[in-house]
């Protein structure tokens, strides 16, 4: 037996432990709904690794550890994940925190798990990782990740291992019952920790009010080879506090602000030890724990083995708690536990006790009186502080002094509050003061940072002003020099590339005009079918023209390899657009033809001819485009021209809109017409955008195969892939390739015996794999293009939104100024009101357009 060293202070509150030790540990029923907080420990919260709706099995990891100080979390029972959302968690604040909710299926089906046959064969680091992955955190109080404590061997010399079985808080008997019934697990756990830390000395600290447990433990320890001492300490609160227990068992004090490992001691809670045993030998993660449910309102106070995440209400029901007499629900012990308001709060890894107290056993505290400095708190303080001084300082917010009086050595055990004859909530004041000090420190850090940033910004701005000044001077000098140089030599600027671009731009403009015309024609055609022929004729001419131009552009592009790629690329773009346009026209013509045929018009023949011609043109355009494409390498900025055209369209659109607004404002009769015009313009703009989009698509499709150096036959096999926007075909292609590949593979597998055939097949497979790969790449590129296109359409909306927001803001601002004007009875009132009306109209207009689009 080891010597016991006393610590200062301590109290002897009524124990109330007998009530809950009469019955053996019972399994709590599986609840319908498990609520498992993702942070049940000190350190970083675990990261959920399951999705809502996913089926999980018991023991399956549902959130994994993140960072060094963290532990993973496992499903306590099998079921479906219903929710990952903030829920009320066991915390003194009563706040909500993210939880994973599982609807249990009642099967309680285990995920496959297996213990380690011989953990000694594993390297220590791996074993520690194993424990971490099984979610073991300290089950005594704070929930410190156990693996971190077991890891200490590296940078600390651990000579003493202390197993904390003191369980000094009144009411709680979870550890007591654990020892009585599962002592062999504890011994096993100690052996594992012994292997990891290799201490010279192992002590189990247990209070002398647990005679039964001590006997059982002594029996169990006979079977182990380890030298383990059971140290029976006198019953006194808070002998189970880590620092107090260290002092009791070893006479050593943990230096202020340090951890026991700094003096070569590691403490583990006895519950944690048992959990390690279960994890290592049986592979079961920490998914349940023993909870004491007791208190005056409990009909059957007892210890329950509850799944982590079980709502408290279930446990209360099992313990037959009388809700009529229940006045306070405390989670944890009466000295350090916290009250909970919501009995849906779940059990977590650190929940050791639930006290359902009646009013008589935990009466509301009487009002606090003045401190008479009686010193009882000082006699009770286990950290040898001066509680009353700390109280004065905390109350008057003299935190500097409180810190000097070692406020941060307070372990918040509550002994001082317990003994205070004036009922002063001492420990509450300390908690408050600690909080405030930490918050102040954080604020100080933040304000220092803000200061630094502000000063850095000021410096940067000053520097910017200086730089600008310098640049201005330099520019002035430069300008003077150029002036001089210009005078000296009359130079001519070579503008060939620029000319080229201009040309292309013009071409684009022309195409656009045609497009517009074609559109209007279509509309008219729709309105009046009799004029079909003339309209279609016009269309035909236009298409012809477009095709010709495309041809021209193509020739230009083909015959001019000396033309820089930057200028050639937009050309291709245009060709593409034209090809697309031609196709569209063809389609429209076909439709018109169909209508005409249906109606039995005489012009049907002509139309048919037109369609044929259009088909030819379309094919020609397509061809031209394809050849142009193959002839030139695509470059980074081919979209420029198109973009410019879109911008222009936008500009026109805006102008038209502005005009419309003024028209509306002036109540002009032309407003209706103008509106229609605007709508048309918008459509046009959208089309321009679409063109741009498709252009973008094309760039990608063309670049993809080139990058992967396709074999010749591949190109032959997939001509369709060349045509833009044919996603379906591409997909089909890919799946065909896949099927072929699979077939070949199966063939290869069955024909393994015949080596000759196998060789051939293998070659075939290689080829097919390549093909498949290529097809897939194309498909991917296609899809990416689509996504981009969608984004491009988004821009439109965005712009509109901006305009709408601006209009709204203008309205609010005007309203404000009108208010002011009203107050001031200003003469401007009328003018302002008119302005407001106009602004409101504008805003509504925008909103309407916006709603059309959304």
């Amino acid at each position: 037996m080891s010597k016991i060293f006393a610590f200062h202070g301590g109290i002897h509150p009524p124990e109330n432990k007998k009530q809950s030790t009469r019955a053996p540990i019972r399994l709590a029923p599986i609840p319908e709904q498990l609520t498992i907080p993702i942070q049940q420990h000190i350190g970083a919260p675990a990261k959920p690794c399951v999705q809502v709706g996913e089926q999980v099995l018991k023991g399956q990891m549902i959130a994994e550890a993140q960072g060094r100080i963290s532990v993973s979390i496992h499903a306590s029972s099998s079921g479906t994940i219903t929710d990952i959302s903030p829920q009320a968690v066991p915390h003194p604040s009563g706040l909500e925190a993210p939880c994973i909710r599982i609807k249990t299926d009642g099967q309680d089906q285990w995920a496959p798990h297996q213990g380690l046959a011989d953990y000694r064969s594993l390297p220590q680091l791996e074993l520690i990782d194993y424990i971490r992955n099984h979610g073991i955190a300290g089950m005594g109080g704070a929930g410190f990740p156990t693996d971190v404590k077991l890891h200490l061997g590296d940078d600390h010399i651990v000579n003493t291992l202390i197993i904390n079985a003191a369980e000094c808080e009144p009411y709680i008997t979870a550890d007591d019952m654990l020892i009585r019934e599962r002592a062999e697990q504890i011994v096993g756990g100690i052996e594992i920790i012994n292997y990891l830390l290799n201490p010279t000395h192992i002590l189990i600290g247990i209070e002398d009010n647990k005679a039964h447990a001590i006997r059982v433990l002594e029996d169990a320890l006979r079977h182990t080879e380890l030298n383990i001492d059971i140290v029976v300490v006198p019953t006194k609160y808070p002998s189970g506090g880590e620092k107090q227990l260290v002092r009791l068992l070893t006479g050593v004090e943990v230096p202020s602000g340090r951890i026991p490992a700094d003096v070569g001691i590691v403490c583990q809670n006895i519950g944690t030890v048992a959990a390690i045993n279960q994890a290592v030998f049986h592979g079961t993660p920490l998914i349940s724990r023993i909870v004491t449910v007791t208190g005056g309102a409990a009909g059957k106070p007892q210890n329950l083995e509850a799944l982590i995440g079980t709502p408290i209400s279930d446990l209360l029901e099992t313990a037959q708690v009388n809700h009529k007499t229940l006045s306070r629900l405390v989670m944890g012990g009466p000295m350090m536990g916290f009250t909970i308001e919501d009995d849906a709060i779940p059990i977590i890894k650190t929940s050791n006790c639930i006290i359902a107290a009646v009013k008589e056993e935990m009466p509301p505290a009487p009002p606090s009186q003045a401190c008479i400095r009686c010193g009882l708190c000082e006699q009770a303080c286990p950290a040898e502080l001066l509680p009353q001084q700390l109280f004065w300082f905390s109350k008057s917010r003299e935190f500097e002094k409180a810190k000097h009086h070692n406020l941060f050595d307070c372990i918040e055990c509550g002994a001082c509050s317990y003994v205070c004859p004036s009922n002063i909530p001492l420990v509450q004041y300390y908690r408050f003061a600690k909080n405030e000090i930490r918050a102040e420190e954080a604020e100080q850090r933040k304000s220092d940072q803000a200061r630094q940033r502000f000063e850095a910004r000021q410096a940067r701005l000053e520097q910017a002003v200086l730089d600008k000044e310098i640049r201005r001077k330099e520019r002035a000098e430069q300008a003077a020099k150029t002036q001089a140089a210009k005078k000296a030599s009359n130079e001519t600027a070579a503008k060939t590339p620029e000319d080229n671009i201009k040309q292309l731009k013009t071409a684009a403009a022309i195409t656009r005009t045609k497009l517009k015309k074609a559109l209007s024609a279509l509309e008219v055609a729709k309105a009046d079918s009799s004029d079909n022929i003339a309209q279609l004729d016009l269309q035909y001419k236009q298409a012809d023209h477009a095709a010709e131009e495309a041809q021209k552009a193509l020739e230009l592009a083909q015959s001019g390899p000396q033309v820089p790629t930057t200028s050639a690329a937009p050309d291709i773009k245009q060709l593409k657009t034209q090809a697309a346009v031609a196709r569209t026209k063809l389609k429209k013509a076909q439709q018109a033809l169909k209508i005409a045929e249906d109606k039995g018009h005489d012009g049907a023949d002509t139309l048919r001819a037109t369609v044929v011609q259009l088909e030819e043109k379309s094919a020609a355009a397509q061809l031209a485009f394809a050849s142009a494409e193959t002839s030139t390498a695509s470059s980074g900025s081919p979209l420029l021209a198109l973009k410019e055209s879109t911008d222009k369209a936008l500009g026109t659109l805006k102008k038209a809109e502005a005009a419309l607004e003024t028209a509306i404002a002036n109540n002009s009769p032309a407003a209706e017409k103008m509106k229609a015009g605007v709508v048309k313009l918008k459509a046009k703009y959208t089309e321009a955008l679409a063109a741009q989009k498709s252009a973008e698509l094309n760039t990608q499709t063309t670049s993809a195969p080139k990058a992967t150096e396709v074999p010749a036959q591949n190109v032959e096999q997939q001509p369709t892939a060349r045509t833009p926007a044919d996603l379906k075909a591409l997909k089909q292609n890919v799946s065909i390739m896949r099927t072929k590949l699979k077939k070949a593979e199966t063939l290869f597998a069955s024909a393994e015996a015949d080596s000759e055939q196998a060789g051939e097949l293998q070659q075939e497979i290689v080829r097919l794999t390549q093909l498949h790969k290529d097809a897939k790449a194309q498909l991917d590129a296609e899809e990416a293009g689509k996504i981009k296109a969608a984004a491009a359409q988004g821009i439109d909306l965005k712009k509109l939104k901006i305009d709408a927001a601006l209009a709204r803001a203008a309205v609010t601002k005007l309203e404000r100024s009108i208010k002011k004007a009203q107050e001031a009875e200003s003469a401007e009132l009328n003018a302002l009101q008119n302005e407001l009306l106009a602004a409101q109209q504008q805003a509504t207009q925008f909103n309407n357009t916006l709603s059309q689009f959304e």
Partner: protein
Amino acid sequence: MSAVLIAILVLLSLAVVFGLVLGFAAVKFKVEGNPIVDQIDDLLPQTQCGQCGHPGCRPYAEAIANGEQINKCPPGGQSTIEALADLLDVEAVPLDAEHGEESIKTVAYIREDECIGCTKCIQACPVDAILGAAKQMHTVIVSECTGCDLCVEPCPVDCIDMLPIETTLNNWKWTPPVPGIELIATDTGRTITHASNKEGTPS
């Protein structure tokens, strides 16, 4: 008469001696700058919000060192006033309502789908806590935002909100215990306001 003469002579020689001492001290112990400004600046919240009527916290610190009132800093609130009073050994006065009222701590939040990317708020932010570029949507780096609300006014589309800092398990604080019955009518003030926004501790 000789007594008077002697007295005068003695005084004269004393004056000479002490004059020399004074002269020496004036040269030797001359104080450069004013270290108190740094100390004051340390106590100010560094929101750089300008509500005090000075362009930034340091200018206000300098003004305080030159005798300006210490109650013009709404973000710092009463606690800052008390800290300043403590440092400068003057009486703590209530916050001057003319410069604004103490409110809960907030951070700026940009409603991003309404942002038009005008960069006006970026230019207004004294601590470079807003990220964005022209025509791009902006966002606030919450951890750097001091809650000065200088960015709110310049926004042309009013898409910046000052949202109170949310209480989570990590920044949750214990409420101070309700002071017992010993509290009397005359020492209400601060303690009462602290007590009023709490719930549920023994009363």
